[in-house]
């Protein structure tokens, strides 16, 4: 075919497609010209004008037929057929609003749920950081034991000295950045107001290729030892929300405790930090953090791979220099620990999507929810397939006629599939709305009072691609079986009796499959629900209701460290005197409060194990309602000068002190602050309480007396109970603290909220998987109801005969329900096997029960069977009530 010819063909096809009207008009003109000429010729031959016209028309054989034939010669394009099919499909759907609504709504729910979960996954795991060449970025992680010392931040991997040694020795990266997450307080006095923040190395912005919106960003010159309070860069979001986007922001200072820090610039709008799930408000150089301790683990690193270097090469290079790095960074470390540090394994992972502890904890649950949502969509599709099969049976005659007048089977198939695609398209448009609503509702569910989760959920090509793909696959799944059935319609010989049973076997099989999948989803939903219940009913060892935690920060305070003990005693007394105060004490941390400290325990110079540490004031256990098992609480005897005393949990006593712990001694060998370790005498044993994680069992906690501390931190954490409501207490405390020290700030937490927030992931899984399971159950029941109703309707005559021959009503009822039972039993058996297989994938997310919990499976199956029989009862009763005379007359 020559190019010219091709061009002409394409031009003509496009023309008939897009300007069909003008092509038709041209055809009219052409045929009219022919007629007029012919009439003239006929008249010239001596015919009368009327007769001449009639003869000309007859010769042409009917203008309209000719026009249609001419149209046919050009109407062979696929696109035009498709448009015609679409118009027809629209008409068909408009004629059956009930069917259309059901179909579109169930597709919207199914595809919408999938899109929503995918949106979350996309935001969390797939979308790359908005920085230069994100695919060159990798994160270095260390795995191994023995990271003793101070730990802060969510992404802690190494210390500042380790970073400096790494920087000097690494070869894989063109540059390597280090950063630590933190919070900056924006409120100079009163209750604190935090924004997420970053400590960054001087090469941070340069390496990532982040540009300033105004001013300049932190550079290597800003991150040098002795930089004091340093400088600050704020995010575009903070600039807009806190400073109204004013351009005179440069040179202003960032408010908050500590020395005021000059703002030198604002980052570009799209930059949110390097941690997915967080929107930073400000960044300051590492040198200003004061975190220089060699055993302070707080930094994460990201490197930009040199051209030609692979992740594996980088990993082996870093691994080879690690012992040197550790020796250089931790020169005077205990020999047994130094060995552990040198043995740590380096892992180099892709960081094109940033770092994210949120991703580590939620990616797996989300993939599971994705699978669950996919199965829900599958059930919805099967329902639609069933509906369409029923319709297909009803439309057989229509299609038989089409085939008889010359439609090809291919065209019939195309027409039916077009209808399915149209349904899927309508469904997926509605689904985008559902998805936006669902995905927006998730981040608040997994945010805590302090940690706001920020995910960029905007639609991108991946989300649209996913939705389109889901719609097409769905349309094929539910559209293909009915389409093939219709395309196989015989032109003649459509026997009446067979009509009722058309596709019945296939439809029953589909319902069995639906029931099987529903059982899997119900089982999963119940497992997550029971996990959440198990956690929620966990005894955390305290009565958390009504307990308020007030953190008072004296970071800007003029109290020198040595006066703190007296000053804090004064504040304690003032707070205790507040009206309604029932109990007030202080603590380093509270159960599930997020702070933690742990230490080695030695008895008679032998290492026996680890324990978590909390330092608490007198009355702590009483305030929290933790019972004393033996011994005494801290009291006025426990002063700094006296011998050190400790209270331990029952698990601690059982594990390390063989039960009879009172009066026994142990030492904490590496108490960094003090030399040589300290000897502690156990004076009390309390019932177990949780420390950091609600899933922990047998918590071994050691409580020190805060009254024995020689030096206090500039932070006082009060734990208190008061009458008269939390809001009133909070207002009174804030006022008292302000009167005591105007520069102090306070942050409050409610202990019961803190406990609930320890189960966010489980709550999310329980909630979503139960909702999905419920939707699946609903869909399956609708499907079952449809099939049973249809069967009953098509077997009316047969049932009539049975009744006429003396079958009793219960007998008919049993027959129909027995049929339902067969469908369900097959579904439940297959589903049970699938559920147990699928359960293996979620075992690690469960608590208090195993993934092959037979009782849960039984519950799910029972629920499904009851719901199934109830839904079948209605049509079955209808069958039993068939009047033989009218049934037989109809047939």
């Amino acid at each position: 075919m020559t190019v010219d010819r091709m061009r002409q063909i394409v031009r003509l096809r496009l023309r008939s497609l897009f300007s069909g009207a003008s092509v038709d008009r041209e055809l009219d003109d052409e045929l009219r010209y022919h007629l007029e000429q012919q009439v003239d010729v006929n008249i010239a031959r001596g015919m009368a004008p009327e007769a001449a016209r009639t003869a000309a028309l007859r010769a042409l054989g009917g203008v309209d037929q000719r026009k249609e034939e001419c149209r046919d010669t050009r109407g062979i394009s696929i696109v035009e057929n498709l448009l015609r099919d679409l118009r027809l499909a629209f008409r068909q759907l408009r004629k059956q609003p009930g069917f259309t609504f059901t179909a579109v709504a169930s597709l919207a729910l199914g595809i919408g749920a999938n899109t929503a979960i995918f949106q979350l996954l996309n935001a969390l795991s797939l979308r790359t950081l908005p920085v230069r060449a994100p695919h060159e970025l990798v994160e270095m992680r260390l795995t191994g034991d023995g990271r003793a010392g101070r730990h802060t931040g969510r992404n802690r991997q190494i210390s500042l000295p380790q970073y400096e040694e790494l920087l000097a020795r690494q070869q894989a990266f063109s540059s390597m950045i280090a950063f630590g997450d933190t919070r900056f307080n924006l409120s100079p006095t009163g209750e604190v107001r935090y924004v997420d923040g970053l400590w960054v190395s001087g090469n941070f912005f340069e390496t990532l290729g982040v540009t300033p919106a105004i001013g300049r960003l932190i550079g290597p010159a800003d991150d040098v030892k002795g930089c004091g309070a340093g400088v600050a860069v704020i995010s575009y979001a903070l600039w807009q929300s806190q400073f109204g986007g004013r351009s005179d922001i440069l040179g202003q200072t960032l408010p908050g405790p500590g020395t005021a820090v000059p703002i030198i610039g604002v980052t570009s709008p799209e930059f949110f930090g390097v941690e997915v799930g967080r929107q930073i408000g400000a960044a300051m150089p590492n040198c200003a953090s004061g975190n220089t301790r060699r055993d302070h683990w707080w930094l994460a690193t990201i490197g930009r791979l040199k051209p030609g270097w692979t992740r594996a090469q980088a990993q082996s290079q870093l691994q080879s220099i690690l012992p040197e790095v550790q020796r250089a960074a931790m020169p005077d470390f205990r020999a047994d620990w130094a060995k552990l540090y040198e043995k740590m394994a380096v892992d180099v992972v892709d960081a094109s999507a940033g770092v994210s502890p949120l991703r580590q904890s939620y990616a797996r649950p989300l993939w599971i929810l994705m699978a669950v949502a996919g199965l829900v969509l599958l059930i919805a599709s099967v329902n639609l397939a069933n509906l369409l099969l029923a319709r297909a049976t009803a439309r057989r005659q229509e299609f038989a006629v089409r085939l008889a007048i010359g439609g090809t089977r291919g065209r019939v198939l195309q027409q039916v599939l077009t209808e399915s695609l149209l349904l899927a398209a309508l469904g997926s448009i509605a689904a985008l709305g559902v998805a936006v609503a669902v995905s927006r509702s998730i981040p608040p569910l997994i945010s805590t009072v302090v940690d706001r989760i920020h995910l960029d959920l905007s639609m991108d090509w991946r989300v649209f691609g996913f939705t389109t793909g889901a719609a097409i696959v769905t349309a094929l799944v539910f559209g293909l079986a009915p389409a093939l059935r219709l395309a196989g319609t015989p032109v003649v010989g459509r026997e009446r009796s067979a009509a009722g049973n058309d596709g019945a076997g296939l439809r029953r099989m589909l319902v069995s499959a639906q029931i099987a999948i529903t059982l899997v989803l119900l089982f999963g939903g119940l497992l997550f629900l029971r996990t959440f219940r198990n956690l929620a009913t966990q005894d955390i060892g305290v009565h958390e209701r009504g307990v308020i935690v007030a953190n008072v920060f004296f970071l800007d305070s003029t109290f020198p460290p040595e006066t703190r003990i007296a000053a804090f005693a004064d504040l304690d007394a003032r707070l205790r005197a507040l009206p309604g105060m029932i109990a007030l004490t202080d603590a380093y941390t509270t159960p599930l409060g997020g702070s933690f400290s742990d230490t080695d325990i030695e008895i008679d110079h032998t290492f026996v194990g680890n324990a978590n540490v909390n330092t608490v004031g007198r009355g702590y256990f009483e305030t929290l309602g933790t019972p004393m098992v033996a011994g005494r609480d801290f009291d006025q005897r426990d002063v700094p000068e006296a011998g050190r005393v400790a209270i331990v949990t029952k698990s601690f006593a059982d594990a390390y002190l063989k039960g009879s712990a009172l009066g026994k001694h142990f030492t904490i060998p590496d108490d960094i602050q003090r030399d040589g370790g300290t000897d502690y005498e156990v004076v009390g044993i309390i019932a177990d309480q949780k420390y950091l994680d609600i899933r922990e069992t047998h918590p071994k906690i050691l409580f020190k007396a805060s009254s024995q501390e020689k030096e206090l931190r500039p932070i006082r954490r009060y734990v208190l109970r008061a009458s008269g409501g939390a809001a009133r207490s909070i207002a009174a405390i804030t006022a008292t603290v302000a009167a005591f020290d105007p520069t102090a700030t306070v942050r409050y937490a409610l202990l019961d909220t803190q406990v609930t927030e320890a189960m966010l992931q489980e709550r999310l899984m329980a909630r979503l998987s139960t909702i999905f399971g419920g939707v699946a159950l609903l869909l399956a029941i609708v499907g079952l109801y449809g099939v049973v109703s249809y069967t009953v309707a098509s077997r009316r005559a047969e049932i009539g005969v049975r009744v006429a021959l003396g079958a009793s009503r219960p007998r008919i009822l049993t027959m129909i329900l027995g049929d339902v039972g067969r469908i369900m039993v097959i579904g439940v058996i297959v589903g049970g096997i699938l559920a147990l297989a699928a359960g293996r994938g979620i075992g690690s997310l469960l608590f208090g029960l195993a993934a092959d919990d037979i009782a849960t499976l039984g519950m799910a199956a029972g629920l499904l069977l009851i719901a199934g029989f109830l839904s079948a009862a209605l049509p079955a009763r209808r069958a039993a009530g068939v009047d033989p005379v009218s049934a037989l007359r109809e047939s």
Partner: protein
Amino acid sequence: MSRPADLVQGTLDLLILKMLALEPLHGFAISQRLKQMSGDILQVSDGSLYPALHKLEQEGWIEAEWKPTENNRRAKFYSLTRSGKRQLVKETESWARLAGAISMVVTLPEV
């Protein structure tokens, strides 16, 4: 069906292409020409002419242009394209083969 017996499949196309090879013509002229040339032997109805013309146009073998006629009316004139010329040669050859074969068969001496 009372339509005149159709020409052998493809023959009408060949005749149209041949006629347009001589000069561009409009539909009515082609119809007149066909009647003159073939007389009563080939019955080409006006009815089958236009679909055939449109088909040839869609195939890219002929192209159309609106031009004034000798008596100053506007009519759609068809002319042969380059690929149409090649098609004409091809169809002529195959017609010749077919005609030759048939005439050979029908003129076989009956023994």
